[in-house]
Every structure is written in C-alpha cells, then in structure tokens.
C-alpha cells in the first residue's frame, strides 16, 4: 500500500511557482531514495545466458511470447517522481518504481499462480532469484528489492516531501 499524502501535487505546483530551486531539488531527493531499490532489482535479473534458450529472441521468430533481452529488461526498471494520472480509485502516484517490460514482468511474477508449469520449473532449475513479498507484492526483482529495502525508501520519500513543504512554509513566513 502506498503512503497516502495530502497536498503533494499542490506542493509541486507551489514549489514551481514560488521556489524553483526547491522544485528542482525535490525530485532529485526522491530519486536518490528510490534508486537503491531499482539498482538492487536490476541485480536480481538474470543475464541472457541464465534464461532458457527458447525465451531469448530468435531471428525470424513468429512467437508472440515476449522474448527476454537482459539489456532491455534491466533498462525497463526505473523510477518516476512526476505525478501519474489518477487510477480507478482516484489516486495519483507521487513517486513510483516500475518494471515495465513484459519479459521483466514475466520473470518477476512467474510461478505465482502456475508454479508447476514446465516453463517456470525449467527456468527455476536454470536460474531464478528467490521470491519475496506478499500477495500482489510478491516478486523476484522489483518486489524483492522493495521488500528488502524495509520501507527505507518510503520513509525517505515522505521525509523529502515534508522537508520541501517545511522549507516552502519557512520561506513564505519570511
């Protein structure tokens, strides 16, 4: 569950308007807090040689199953500090880490429901980092890194937002 923040978007707008320096510093600070997660998550991803050979991209392949390319999958893990569009429940994300490639997502979550499938068993036999997390937050790369981060990133993000708000308020008083 993400931490619910009130006035985060308004704070961004106010910072841009009244304190451009702080507006630039806040995403950097948030990014610095999220980077350890993405870095660790990239480390948990297998290289091309560690995945099933049939999962790798093959020339002239007609397969629609997403091929694994370690470079692309690793570059698909990142973070975002700009507010997202509201989701179905009306929440807008202020800071987010993601694993956006299809192959990365497959590696992340494979075996959650179909642990006995041939693909999962063979890939696990060849290479697979251990799954960590609970329910929908269970995974091998990003979710694992987030789980092992023990909420440090979340605390740092909230601290950065609160700090920026305090500084802005202090400026406003002066």
């Amino acid at each position, binding site marked *: 569950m*993400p931490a619910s923040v009130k*006035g985060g978007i308004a704070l961004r707008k106010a910072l841009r308007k009244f304190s451009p320096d702080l507006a630039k510093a806040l995403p950097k600070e948030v990014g610095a807090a999220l980077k350890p997660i993405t870095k660790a998550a990239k480390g948990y991803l297998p290289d091309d040689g560690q995945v099933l050979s049939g999962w790798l991209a093959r020339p002239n392949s007609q397969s629609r199953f997403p091929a694994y390319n370690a470079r692309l999958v690793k570059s698909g893990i990142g973070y975002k500090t700009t507010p997202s569009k509201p989701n179905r429940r009306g929440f807008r994300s202020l*800071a987010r*880490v993601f694993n956006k490639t299809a192959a990365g997502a497959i590696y992340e979550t494979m075996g959650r429901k179909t642990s006995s499938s041939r693909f999962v068993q063979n890939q696990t036999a060849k290479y697979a980092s251990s799954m960590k997390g609970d329910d929908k937050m269970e995974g091998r790369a990003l979710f694992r890194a987030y789980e092992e981060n023990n909420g440090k990133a979340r605390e740092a993000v909230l601290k950065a937002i609160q700090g920026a708000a305090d500084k802005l308020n202090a400026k406003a008083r002066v």
Partner: protein
Amino acid sequence: MANVFIDIAAEFTGDKAFRKAENSTDKLMKSVKKLAKTLGVAYGSQQILAFGKASIKAAAADQKAQQQLALALNNVGLGRDAATSEAYIQQLQSEFGIVDDKLRPAYQTLAVATRDTAKTQKLLNLSLDISASTGKDLETVTAALSKAYLGNNTALSKLGVGISKADLKAGKFDDIVSQLSTTFAGSATAAANTFQGSIDKLGVASANVKEIIGTGLIDALTTLGKDNTIGDLAKDMENTATYLADVIRGIGVLGDKLKATPIIGQVFGNLNVGMIPIVGSYLQLLREAGKQAPIQKSSDNQHLKSLESQFKVSSKIVNNTKKLTAEELKALKAKQLQTAIDKANAALGTASSVFDMDKIQIAAALTSQAEQLGKATSSSQQLQIANDTARLRVKQDILALEDAIASKDEASITAATNKLNTDLKVLSVLTGQNVKLADIKSILDSLKPADLINQANLDAALAKIKEMLDLLAKANLASTTKPATSASLGSGIPKGDFVVPVSMKDALAASTDALIEYADAAAARANAFADLLDLQNAADLAALQQSSIYSNSGALQSFRQAESATINIYANTIANPDELTGLIQDTIIRLNKRGDYLTTAGSL
C-alpha cells in the same frame, strides 16, 4: 500488458465517478438557468422590474453627468453658467435629436478650451453642423475645433472641411470659424428634419422618458422606504415593481374585457385608462397626488442652481483662504527666524566646546593614538590602539550626545545617538577580537614546556614541606596527652633482657641431657618473648591510635579502618569480540596474501 510497479506515495484526487457527477450537475444547472430565462420572458413583473431598474440607472447616470459637467465648468471659472449650459444642452437635444450623453462631453471639451460660455455654445453649434455634414462624430469635431482654438490646426485639416493647409496656417481662428459657418450653415437643422432625424428625436425622447421615470421612481421609493438604507430601498423597489406589474396586468385584463363587451366596446373603442370607470378616477387621483408631491424633474436643474449658490460661497472661501495664507506666511517667516537663531546658538555651543577640557583631553589622546599607530609593529599592537581609539570615540560620542540633549535639538540628538550606537558596535567587535587574542596567548603559554629543574620551584616545595613539618610539630605540642608507650601500657619486657648464648667450651663440657634441657628452656623463653613481642606490637598500635598523629592522618586512619586493601584495575575493552575476531581474520588473510619478514606469503 505488464503492469509491475510500486507506488511509494500517492495522493487521492477524487474518483472519476465524482467528476462525472460534477459535470452532470453543471450541465443540469445550465439547463435550469436557460429554462428560467425562457420562463422569465413570460413574467411581466420581471420585465417591469428590469425597466424600472434601467430607468433608475439612466436617471442616476444623467444626474452624475450633469454634476460632472457642472464641476468641470466650475473648475474653468464658468461655474455660474452651469444651469444655463445644461438648459442649452437640453434644448440642443430636443432640437437636433442628439442625446445629452454626447452633447455634454462635447460642451465640456470646448468650454475647457475657450473658457467662455458664448464661444463654447457658438463652437458647439458649428460642430453640430460639421458633424451632420461630414458624418464625423461630434466628439472628433469638437476636439479638432478646440485644438484649433488653441492654435493647433492639424486635427481640423484632417476633418476634410474644405480649407487648405496653407489657409489654415495663415488664417486666424475667427476667419476659419466664419468660413466654416458659411460652408456648413444649417446642416444640423436639415439633418434633424430628415426621417433619420425624427427617429433620433424619438430615441432622445425615449431616453428622456426613461430618465424622468427613473427620477420619479427614486423619489417614490425614497418616500416609501422612509429611511435611507439601501437594503430597504431595494426591497421596496422589488415590491413596488411587482405590485405595479400586477396592477398594469389587471388594467390590461380589464380593458380587454371591456372591449369584448358589445356596447361598452363600441363606446370605449379607443381605450384610455383615464376613461375606465372607477379605475380611471383612482388613476386620476394618483396622478394629481404625484404632481403635488415634491418631485425632481431633470429639466428643473435644481442641483445645478444649488451648485451656482455653492460657487458664490466658494468664492468667499477662497478670499478667506487668501487671508489665512498671508497669516501663515508671517508665521513661517517667524519660524525661519527662530531656526536661524537656534543654528547660531548651536554654533556658539560648538565654539565653547573648544575650551572644554574633556574634549581637549580626548582630542589629545586620539592624536597620541594616531602617533602610536604609526609606530606599531605587530597586529596585536594595532588592535590595541584601535581598541583604545574606539573607546575614546565612544567617550567623545557620549559628550556630543550630552551636548545635543542640552540643546534640545531632536535631529542632533538622533544623529548623536546613532553615532554613539555605531561606535559602540565597533568597540564591541574590537573587544571581541581582543578577547580572542588573550585566549590565544593563554593557549600558547600553556604550550610552553615546564622547567624540569627549577630552583625556585624546589625552594618553594622545601618551604612547603618545612611548613608542614612545623604544623605537625605544633600539633604534637598542642596535644595535651603524651602518646602512650609500651612501658606505660606494661608489656612486661625488661630492658636489655636476652638469652646469653652457650659458649663452645661450656657446651663441650656439659652433658647431652643438660644441653637438651638448656635448649628446651631457651626455646620456652623465646616463645615467651615472642608472645611478649606480640603484646608489644598491640600496645604500640594502641598507643599510635591514641596519639594526635593518628587522628591527624586521614590516610593512616582509613587504611586502618579498611583492615584490608582491595586494588581494582580497570582495563577498557580492547575490542568487541566480533571485531577482534574480524581483526584476527583480516590479519591472517593479509599475512597469507602478502606475508611479512617472519612469514612468507601463502605459507598459512
């Protein structure tokens, strides 16, 4: 689609459903408003209310415009002609079908330029003719004529009035005006007599009707409200309009019914409300009452007449003000003289300060400091001189402030106070630096090595020891009871008593039994003496405890009381066990990798 992400922080901005509901509500509100507008057309009372409001607004605007013109005329010295001018404008309005809202600014422009009522009216007439003939608006023409009156003919040439630039440059304004009058004579009258002119006149009449009704409404509502609060007035306006609308609607219904009646309809074919039985008589009564009521007609220009009277009063005020100004000038001159005297006194005070001993001493000290500053070689000396100088300046400032207070001059007191504060700040800064230097000096002194053999220190130490010994001796002398001895306590050991050893000769001569008996006796005696020695020690200890030495020596007493001494040695932890293990491991690894002069690399 892959959708693996973690939101670290999020903000609730509202559900889509809420936004949809909001948009739907907005749309509904707009529809309701449109419906209300459509229905509003059917409501006669609303229209009448709107007309009433517009009438009141028009009447208020008309009054405001009249007052503005009157004020402008007053400012250029034509205040006495305000009523005449307004009457003239009303006349032009009805004659040429031009609304007074256009005539007043034109009249004002010309009046400001000419500052003459007759010339203004003549030029306004000419402007109307030119405007009607050329099709230019009245404002442009009057602006051009007013500029031409003041000597700038450029705007006039742009009007296209048929006069060349050379003629405009060469000719006098009066000649130009007469030429223009000839050229455009009767244009305005001719235009007014056309069909468009008639329509314009009707438009002017309609505007006047609105203003007249508005004036009447204001009077009526003010009377109805019985007080001057806007809230009551607005409420009464709405109530009256609703009531009036109902009445008008009722009259309409009544007239319609009368027309439908066969005989009456023929009699009252051309219906006049005054002719309606009973209702007509009531309306006649109302009209008479309204006529007798104190109404304010726009044509009466009552407020302008009051302005004229005000103008006369204001002339008197101006005369009085002139007199007052002359008196003020006298007062000002007297004040200036007093200021000059005060300045002279201050100068005298300055001169007397030359002989002030305090000031002389400070000046001398400052001079001396300046000389010393030239001779200073180190920064600390310079700092000291600066410090002294700052102190002298503070003293000087205090004297200056005292003088200023004595002179009771606020400006000089403020200046002296400010200078004193500034110098105090400087002094505080310098003092701070001085303290820092002193700190540094003490630190440096502490760093100096102490002398290992210092005769003075030794002498002092010996003197101290001697003093302590003297004190101890005095303490012993001061003790009234002499310290107990073994003799006094009665240990029983006779002085010089001991067993004489058996000589070799006697031992060889004596028998074995005798020797054994002698040895036994000697051992028994020795044991007895040992017991006596123990007693002696106990007695000595008791004597020591009773003596003043024992009681004066805290260390001895505590040692005695403790019976036994326990010595604890505290050694700090060398390292955390884990750290120690780690260190050892690291050392072994390092030795294995690199080796040292005892161990070759890789040998472990």
